[in-house]
C-alpha cells in the first residue's frame, strides 16, 4: 500500500470534497453540508467496500479531469449520468475502475444529472472542520473546493480488482418531476390562490442553483400580509418564498434561519431526485400529510440500507467470477 497522488488538470466550479456531512451544529448557524445526492454518495463508498461516509469528491456539472501521478488506485463513480473517460476509453457513470500511474480520468457532464461522486479505495487527505471533511461551500470550511492545478493525495491507496465493473443503480428512487412536500411551516402567510398555484402548477429550476439552494421559476406566490415575520429555522428542503413571490428550495449548505416564509418542505427522500435535475427541467409538488411523509422516510431508509448491502458485495476477480459461474451451472446441471 502506498499513497496515490492525483494531479488536477481541470476542476469546474463547485467540485468539492464531501464526507457524510456534519449534523448537530444547526444551532450555531452551521448547515450539515455533505453530499447533495446522499444515495449516490453512499453507493460509491458501499460499492468499494468502504466504511460509510468516507470522504469523496463531489463533481458538479463543471466536471473534473485528473491524472494519476503515483501509485494505482481503485475508485467508484456514481450519481446522475455523467460521461467517464478513463485511459482513452469512454464508459458511463456508476462504475468502478482502477486508475494506474500515468492514466487520466475525466468525469464530465453527460445526458442527465447534476452531481456525481468519486469514492476511493484509500483515505483522501482533507482539511477537517468540526470533525468533518464535508465542504461548506459558502465559507470554504472543511475539505474545500478542488482547484485546477492542485494535487489530491489518497493515503493507503489500494487496488481492489474484485470490485471493478458496473455499480447497480437504485431502482426504488422515484423518477420524474413530482416532488412530495409537507405544506408549511409558514403556509398560513400565503393567500389561498398562492397555495393552489404552488400545488397545481409546474416550476422549472433556474441556473441560480448551487449547494445553498435552487431558485425556481413559475407562478408567483403572493403573500397574505406585509413581510416582517421574525427569522425562523430553515432545513434542507425548505421552500422559501421571497418578498417578490419567488420560491427557492434550500439545499445542503442552506442558511440555518431566515425571515422569508416557507410555504412547504420537500421530504428528505425526494431531495436526492430534485438535486439531480438541471436548469430548465420542471418539477411539480404533491402535498402529503406528515404521517405519510414519515412512512415514506422509514420505507426509504430500509430501501437504501438493502440497496447498499447489495452493492457492497464484491463481484470477485475474474477467476473467482468464472468459478462462480461454473459452480452455478454445475448445480443446475445436477438437478436435471
Amino acid at each position, binding site marked *: 500500500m502506498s499513497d496515490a497522488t492525483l494531479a488536477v488538470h481541470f476542476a469546474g466550479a463547485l467540485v468539492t470534497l464531501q464526507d457524510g456531512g456534519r*449534523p*448537530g*451544529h*444547526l*444551532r*450555531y*448557524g*452551521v448547515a450539515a453540508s455533505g453530499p447533495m445526492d446522499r444515495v449516490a454518495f453512499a453507493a460509491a463508498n458501499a460499492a468499494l467496500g468502504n466504511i460509510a461516509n468516507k470522504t469523496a469528491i463531489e463533481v458538479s456539472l463543471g466536471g473534473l479531469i485528473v491524472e494519476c501521478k503515483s501509485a494505482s488506485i481503485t475508485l467508484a463513480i456514481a450519481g446522475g449520468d455523467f460521461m467517464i473517460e478513463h485511459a482513452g476509453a469512454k464508459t458511463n457513470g456508476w462504475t468502478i475502475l482502477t486508475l494506474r500511474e500515468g492514466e487520466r480520468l475525466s468525469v464530465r457532464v453527460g445526458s442527465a444529472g447534476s452531481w456525481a461522486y468519486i469514492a476511493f479505495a484509500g483515505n483522501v487527505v482533507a482539511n477537517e*472542520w*468540526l*470533525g468533518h471533511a464535508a465542504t*461548506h461551500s*459558502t*465559507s470554504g*470550511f472543511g475539505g474545500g473546493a478542488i482547484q485546477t492545478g492542485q494535487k489530491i493525495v489518497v493515503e493507503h491507496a489500494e487496488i481492489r480488482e474484485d470490485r471493478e465493473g458496473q455499480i447497480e443503480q437504485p431502482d426504488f428512487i422515484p423518477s420524474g418531476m413530482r416532488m412530495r*412536500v*409537507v405544506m*408549511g*411551516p409558514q403556509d398560513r402567510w400565503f393567500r389561498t390562490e398562492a397555495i393552489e398555484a404552488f400545488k397545481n402548477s409546474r416550476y422549472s429550476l433556474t441556473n441560480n442553483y448551487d449547494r445553498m439552494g435552487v431558485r425556481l421559476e413559475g407562478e408567483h406566490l403572493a403573500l397574505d400580509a406585509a413581510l416582517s415575520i*421574525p*427569522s*425562523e*429555522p430553515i*432545513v434542507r*428542503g*425548505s421552500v422559501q418564498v421571497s418578498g417578490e413571490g419567488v420560491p427557492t428550495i434550500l439545499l445542503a449548505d442552506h*442558511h*440555518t*434561519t*431566515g425571515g422569508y416564509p416557507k410555504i412547504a*418542505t*420537500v*421530504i*428528505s*427522500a425526494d431531495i436526492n431526485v430534485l438535486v439531480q435535475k438541471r436548469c430548465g427541467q420542471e418539477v411539480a409538488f404533491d402535498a402529503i400529510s*406528515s*404521517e405519510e*411523509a*414519515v412512512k*415514506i*422516510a*422509514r420505507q426509504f*431508509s430500509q430501501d437504501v440500507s438493502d440497496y447498499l448491502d447489495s452493492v457492497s458485495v464484491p463481484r470477485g476477480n475474474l477467476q473467482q467470477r468464472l468459478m462462480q459461474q461454473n459452480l452455478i451451472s454445475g448445480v443446475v446441471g445436477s438437478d436435471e
Partner: protein
Amino acid sequence: MLMEARYTAVADHALLVTLAEELSDEVHEAIVALDRAITQAMPVGVIEVVPALINLLVSFDPVETDHVQLEKALRRLKIDTQHTSDKAAKRIVQVCYEKPFDFDLDAVANATGLSADAVIKAHLASDYKVLMYGFVPGYAYLGGVDASIQVPRKLAAVRDIPAGCVMIAGTQCLVTTLKMPTGWSIIGRSPTPILLNEPDRPFLFDVGDEVVFERISLDSYNELLEASDNE
C-alpha cells in the same frame, strides 16, 4: 406575549414549536428554557434543537420517532422558566472602535444626533443577549442594542465585509465570522475569536448567553490579533 405552544410538522424529520407571534424578553427566556429542557432530556430520536426568535426547531430521525410521538414527549417536559438568566454565561467580546475599523460610526452618529464617542458609549452600555444564530456559521444575533443608537439597515448591502466586524441594525448587534455582504452599520472590529473549533465548545456563544463588549485600542487590537495568529 407567550401563547400556548403551537406544534407544526416540518417535512418528515422536524417539528417546529412556536411560543409567540413576536419577540420579547419573556419569549426569548421561554425559548431558552425549552431549548435547555429538550437538550437535557433528549427524547428518543431527537437529533438537534435549533432555537430561533419566537420558535425552535427539533429535528429527529423519522425511523426512531415521529411528529406525534415527539410532540407528546415535549409536552411532558418539565420546563424551568424561573432561572434562565441565572444560568446564562457571560461572554466578553473586545472591540476596537478606531480607524480604519469605524466604517459607519460617523453615519450612525449623524443619524442618531449623537457624537461618535456617545455612540460608542451607548454600544458598550447596552445589555446584550444571544438570541439565535443564523445566515452562516457563527453569526450570532445579539439583542439589546440601546434605543439611542438603533438605526435601520442600509438600503443596499455592501459586499465583502471582512470577519470580525462589529455591526448594528435595529435592536440587534452582530460580530461577523466570515467575509459576507451586509446592510448593517459597522462601528468597530473585534479580535475575539467566535469560531473556536474546539470539539466541546465549537463557538464562543450559546443561545441565551449574555455578551459584554470591552473597548480596546488599535495597538492592543493588533497585539491580540498577532498573538492569536501565532497560536
